[in-house]
């Protein structure tokens, strides 16, 4: 169908989600109550902002993920032609993986993969 199908499906998604939510709006009888707007936590009033600091470990994993994901994208074109190129492609990817793995070992040694 071609690239237009992407647009069609985006509209279908908007229609599906928007349709569901607006049908629900027709049936709902809302009531006003100040306690309804509170966060669903444990009953007593919440303390502090919900947007506070969180563990730095997530950031480290995100960085390592970024490196590996870019390498992964490089590997797709390699994987398509590897059968035609033959043994040379295997040698090259071994060198590529060796360098990548050294970086991975360095991150591991530095403790970036350790969840404290």
């Amino acid at each position, binding site marked *: 169908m071609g690239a237009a199908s992407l647009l069609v499906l985006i509209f279908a998604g908007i229609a599906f989600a928007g349709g569901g939510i607006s049908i629900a709006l027709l049936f709902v009888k809302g009531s006003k109550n100040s306690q309804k707007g509170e966060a669903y936590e444990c009953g007593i009033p919440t303390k502090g902002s919900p947007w506070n600091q969180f563990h730095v470990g997530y950031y480290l994993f995100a960085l390592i993920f970024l490196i590996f994901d870019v390498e992964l994208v490089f590997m797709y074109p390699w994987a398509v032609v590897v059968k035609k190129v033959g043994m040379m492609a295997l040698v090259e990817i071994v060198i590529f993986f060796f360098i990548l793995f050294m970086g991975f070992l360095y991150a*591991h040694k530095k403790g970036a993969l350790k969840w404290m």
Partner: protein
Amino acid sequence: MFSLEGLTNFIHEWLNGHLPATFALLAEFVLVGVAAIGLFAVLGLGLVWMERKVAAVIQIRLGPNRIGPKGIFQTSADTVKLIMKESLTPANADKFLFNLAPFVVIIVAMLILVPIAFAKAFQIWDINIGVLYVTAVSSLSVIGILMAGWSSGNKYSLLGAMRSGAQIVSYELSAGLSIITIIVLTGSLKISDIVASQENGWWIFKAHIPAIIAFVIFIIAATAETNRAPFDLAEAESELTAGFHTEYGGMKFALFFLSEYINIFIVCAIGATLFLGGWMPFHVGHWAAFNHIMDYIPSSIWFFGKTIFLIFVIMWFRWTFPRLRVDQLLNLEWKYLLPISMFNVLLMTLVAIMGWHF
């Protein structure tokens, strides 16, 4: 009778024969949109029912059995209930992002449907980078989840979203590497080429041990990417109430719930296409008579059968393994699955170059 083969071609020709070209194209667009929405509704209702029934069978109880035969309309009744519920927006939420997040999640789930081959010659668009497209678009769903968790203005939601993000991006690597092990063999990213290359046997049987290792890693990564137990830390009930969708109620919650099941379906469909031959019937090498008998079963039944089998396996996991801790989860990916799948790619390359596969 149940075959979808050639249905698209028939509709295309019929529309072009009876309508001007522009209207025929518009009619096709509407049909595709309606078909996608219909698939969403049917899959959502069907898979939730299946999940509850599978859980019931494993725990030796009856499961839903009141509404309709074997309780098959239970999920429809649940949907009606969810429509009647008020969906609140918390007072200190980021209202725009909070309401946008369900749309993002649903649109992303819709977009992944594009290159999937549901039956022989039954595909929305056969993109030449099909598999790469699927991996790229499926990782967009993280944005919807982070959006929902961050904008809720709730600490549980934020923690759940962060965990979910870390988990999905981590397991994407080994899922991607196990996809690449199959690409090495097929030499094409197009879904139709990948299915056609399995005409004389599925890759999981043809390509020896590396394919089996890749399949196991793919199933583990798929379970983690869809936030399913034993990797359901993002919505660990005992710790985070419901994770990133704690604050959502009514229809907005239903949309998140639905997109979760749609994502399971899509991941299993990709697994079935890559390793189990997609819509390709079970063929064995040169056994012409046997292959001919297998061809009598329509291709759509093969595809949905394989996909539902993989979904069943993932549901089975949920009642078999206990939930992991977050450090165990990340250790499993970074210290075991990633090195194993990197080595597995090299092994598969050797197998492919030496021609040791069938």
